[in-house]
């Protein structure tokens, strides 16, 4: 067993290592830590039995906009109905226009009860006969017709495929991608319902078994790199796990370290990363795991404003995709590390800390104004420490005490002390 080998080696080196690795001597035996985690998992399971709130529960359904998963045929009908109405408008000599829900920052609302960002009901008209919108309107019409074709043929394509169907019109992929989100909003369906997926980005490894398009996947047997999270969440089913928690990692490097050290075998867990800003598929996957397995989610991100931002995207949703926040967000994510207070607590040497740039400090201060930060006093406190000390550190800063310090000491100690917010 890998974990046994690992532990044996750690024991052999313990004499000099305990001197070199600070706080290692404070670690209790793994079994003690696991029992702590077990209580956490139990608590999470019992807590999450209560029904999740929806917009209609809060009487916000009329003022807020939310999309749902639609079947292919209903997407098809929606597009046809839209096309017919557009054609009618043209034939009547009125040109045509789309009514697009605004995804601007002013049209976003953080609902504390739901702990996520939702889209308000403001819409903007996108007429064809206006110099500023003619291009976007045409692209919207084009994307609609492409989605219609997908729905007829019942196939999935990537965003890149979509872009390449008419490069001349779309010019660059950001334009077709943005319009794709608009189309989701117009039709009132999730992006996955449009049969358009992004390229695989996220990876998962650890104590998880699920079926991908009918094939059973055991994530402990996926090698070091883990299993790529399927871009199409519909393919994923039959999740089962004996893990005690889900560990969300911001960076690929930290993920690799944990995967290689088989951290999930020492402490039964599932490790997920989206390698930076999370894509839709990873967020959907995390939510699905959380909902089906009812495991606590612990996050390991950089100690900088962007780390917290990524955390918030998993937790409360991004502004760009707020129309689908109900499906994309995972409630109750705990901030395990690396937190600004850890820098001093774990005596991270000065040379591994970086000074924050003007931009960083500004982002940090802006975050302090955000509702999803304010709701958690612990986060506010941590962010205040960061902005005040004007120092940031990446997860890799822990490597100063050895590459394996993260998996050998830092994480176990954090878990043992239940040091999450």
């Amino acid at each position, binding site marked *: 067993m890998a974990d046994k080998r690992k532990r044996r080696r750690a024991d052999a080196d313990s004499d000099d290592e305990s001197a070199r690795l600070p706080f290692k001597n404070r670690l209790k035996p793994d079994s003690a830590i696991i029992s702590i985690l077990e209580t956490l998992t139990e608590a999470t399971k019992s807590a999450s039995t209560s029904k999740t709130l929806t917009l209609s529960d809060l009487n916000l359904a009329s003022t807020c906009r939310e999309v749902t998963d639609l079947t292919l045929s209903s997407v098809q009908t929606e597009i046809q109905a839209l096309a017919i109405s557009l054609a009618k408008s043209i034939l009547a*000599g009125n040109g045509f226009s789309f009514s697009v829900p605004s995804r601007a920052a002013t049209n976003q609302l953080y609902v504390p009860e739901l702990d996520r960002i939702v889209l308000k009901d403001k819409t903007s008209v996108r007429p064809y*006969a206006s110099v500023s919108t003619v291009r976007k309107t045409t692209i919207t019409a084009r994307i609609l*017709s492409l989605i219609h*074709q997908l729905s007829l043929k019942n196939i999935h394509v990537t965003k890149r495929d979509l872009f390449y169907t008419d490069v001349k*019109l779309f010019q660059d992929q950001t334009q077709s991608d943005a319009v794709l989100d608009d189309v989701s909003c117009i039709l009132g369906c999730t992006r996955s319902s449009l049969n358009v997926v992004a390229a695989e980005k996220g990876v998962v490894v650890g104590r998880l078994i699920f079926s991908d398009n009918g094939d059973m996947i055991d994530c402990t047997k996926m090698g070091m790199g883990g299993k790529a999270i399927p871009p199409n969440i519909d393919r994923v089913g039959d999740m089962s796990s004996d893990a005690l928690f889900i560990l969300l990692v911001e960076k690929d490097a930290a993920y690799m370290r944990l995967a290689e050290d088989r951290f999930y075998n020492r402490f039964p867990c599932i490790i997920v990363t989206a390698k930076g800003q999370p894509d839709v598929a990873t967020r959907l996957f995390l939510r699905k795991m959380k909902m089906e397995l009812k495991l606590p989610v612990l996050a390991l991100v950089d100690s900088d404003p962007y780390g917290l931002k990524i955390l918030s995207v998993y937790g409360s949703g991004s502004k760009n995709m707020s129309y689908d926040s109900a499906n994309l967000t995972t409630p109750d994510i705990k901030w395990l590390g690396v937190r600004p207070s850890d820098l001093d607590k774990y005596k991270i040497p000065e040379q591994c800390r970086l000074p924050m740039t003007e931009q960083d400090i500004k982002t940090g201060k802006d975050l302090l104004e955000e509702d999803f930060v304010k709701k958690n006093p612990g986060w506010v406190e941590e962010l205040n420490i960061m902005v005040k000390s004007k120092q940031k550190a990446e997860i890799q800063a822990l490597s100063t005490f050895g590459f394996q310090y993260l998996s050998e000491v830092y994480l176990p100690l954090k878990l043992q002390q239940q040091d999450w917010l």
Partner: protein
Amino acid sequence: MMRFNIFIYASPPCARVTLYHSLIHSVAVENTSRLSKPLIWADQRISPMDSGESSEESPVQTKKGKSKTPRKPKASTLKQKSPAEFFAENKNIAGFDNPGKSLYTTVRELVENALDSAESIAELPLVEVTIEEINRSKFNSMIGLIDRERIDEALYGDFETVKAREKRLAKEARFQEIQAKNSALGKKVKEPTAGKAMKGRGEASFYRVTCKDNGRGMPHDDIPNMFGRVLSGTKYGLKQTRGKFGLGAKMALIWSKMSTGLPIEISSSMNGQSYTTFCRLDIDIHRNIPHIHLHEKRNDKDPWHGAEIQVVIEGNWTTYRSKILHYMRQMAVITPYAQFMFRFIADTPDKNVSIRFARRTDVMPAVPLETKYHPSAVDLLLIKRLIGETSKQHLLQFLQHEFVNIGKAHAERLIGEMGPDFSSKTPVNSLTSQQIVRMHQLFRQAKFDDPSGDCLSPAGEYNLRLGIIKELQPEMVATYTASAQVFEGHPFIVEAGVSLGGKDVKQGLNIFRFANRIPLLFEQGADVVTRTAMKRINWNSYKINQTQDKIGVFVSIVSTKIPFKGTGKEYIGDDISEIANAVKTSIKQCCVQLKSKIVKKIQAREQQERKRNLSKYISDATGAIYSVLKEASQLHANKKKRLEIKDEDAELLEKVSDRLITKEMLSEKLAQHVEQVDYEMAMEYATQSGVREEPRENIYLQALDPQKNFMDFQTPVFVFRLFQ
């Protein structure tokens, strides 16, 4: 020589025009008397009692308190150096670094003198500059005309030795051979580089520079001294002046004496004089006195006023051609009320240049006023000089009348602050050196109101704008004049203009710098204007593309003392925050004005392109919609049972499948809609911005001579004037 230089840099800042003068003067004096002491110390040991003696000398001379009678040299090797000699040896500080630059500086000194002269009698300047190339044989024959004839030509440096000629001829023969070979082989024949092949090594080119103006002219008797004596002039005193050194044509004369030995020729006539003064003279450099060849009155055929100065110098037209032309062009920008005629007459007629810079306005800026010193701008030397010059007896009066911004009450408070040794009635010429130092200290520390900019004469936004329009013909231009500000007790005014587009303007930033209304052409990189325009202006935010657009940046700074950097006085340093900020604000203000124009222009362009842009996507948009319709209609036809859609929608789909509704039909309808929207928006735009097609521009009609005969045809609306 070393000592001169040390003195120049160590001397505290004082009025620019007096700097060189006082320096030369003191050099002359100190060398005869106190050779062992450093000069700078010698100056401070002046006792106030001496100062009276020197006051009878010309007011331009500094009051060093030293008697000017030459004393017996204490050392036999000691030599006295005349100012003319000093400048002859240090001609680079006056801009005569090399033949090319000397030609340029000669032109500019003559042009600036001409402008000053015309402006001093409020006459619209008319300046004609001619540079005539003189080839060697012609030059030799010119020299032959005067008494110093060349007998042994081989002695001279510009004489082509037999060896050199052989070499050249051999080279030319070789060249011709190669050419013949090339042409035989059908290769493109290279143009023979005539200029190079014709000249031997070290051969100089000579030019006759003539500058004629319609200015005041010069009094008959003063002419020899005005040209033949360095550091005598009419322009000394604290005011905004064009000249950078106060040397004017004298330096050109020294240069001509050094390079060609030919004298300067001056013709001049003043208003109301019935004769023209003709004077041919050169300068005795050692004694700093004119050496007159001919000085006579000639009868005028036509009454005129002004001066014509002709000097033959060594120069280099090929390398300084563009600089001289740039100078003329920039001068025309900043002086649009003047008319310039520039001619270059070459050996070969194909190289002739003739440019006329027409007058564009007849509004001249006011003549700058002479002003008094601001207390924060004086140094010890200057205070002593003022004490020597003043007609006031008592300290109170002295403070009150010899400085700006000191009123009577203020002067009394200052005297009280100076200490018990001072009182209002203290005679100024009894002040000791220590007391003067005390006064100077107080001037440095005390608070004074800033001097006003009234004594300055900026070009004026109106003239700057016209100048830019006249010479660059830009698509748009904006100008701005900042209010007067102060640096070290000297007021300054910054004016700026920014233009976009135009002829002969390269892409990117084109910087035009002016100091006291003369163009600065050299050492552009370190200049405050260049730095500001390049680094501190965010052109993008004004919708100006720094690399693509043709941007003209014009900044004119006028001051009683321009804080030049470097010996050549060619640029203003970037380290003076007052000036840097004023320049930045002025350029920004111009950009703000331009931005609204640019935005309007973009709107107008959108207006024109709207229909095209809207029509461009018709086929894409209708194609997309139609394809959905088509697919839907096929589905609809296949599965009749699908009744999810409304009847009228089903009807439409049936029409699609029956080809009653086609893509072309949709396109046509959409095109009609676009047409209609375009029409509506054009109407809206027209009502907002007025119906005029193009922006109108005022045209300038030049004023005619009043003597012309004309006849008026009056109507209640206008007068029609017929000239005969």
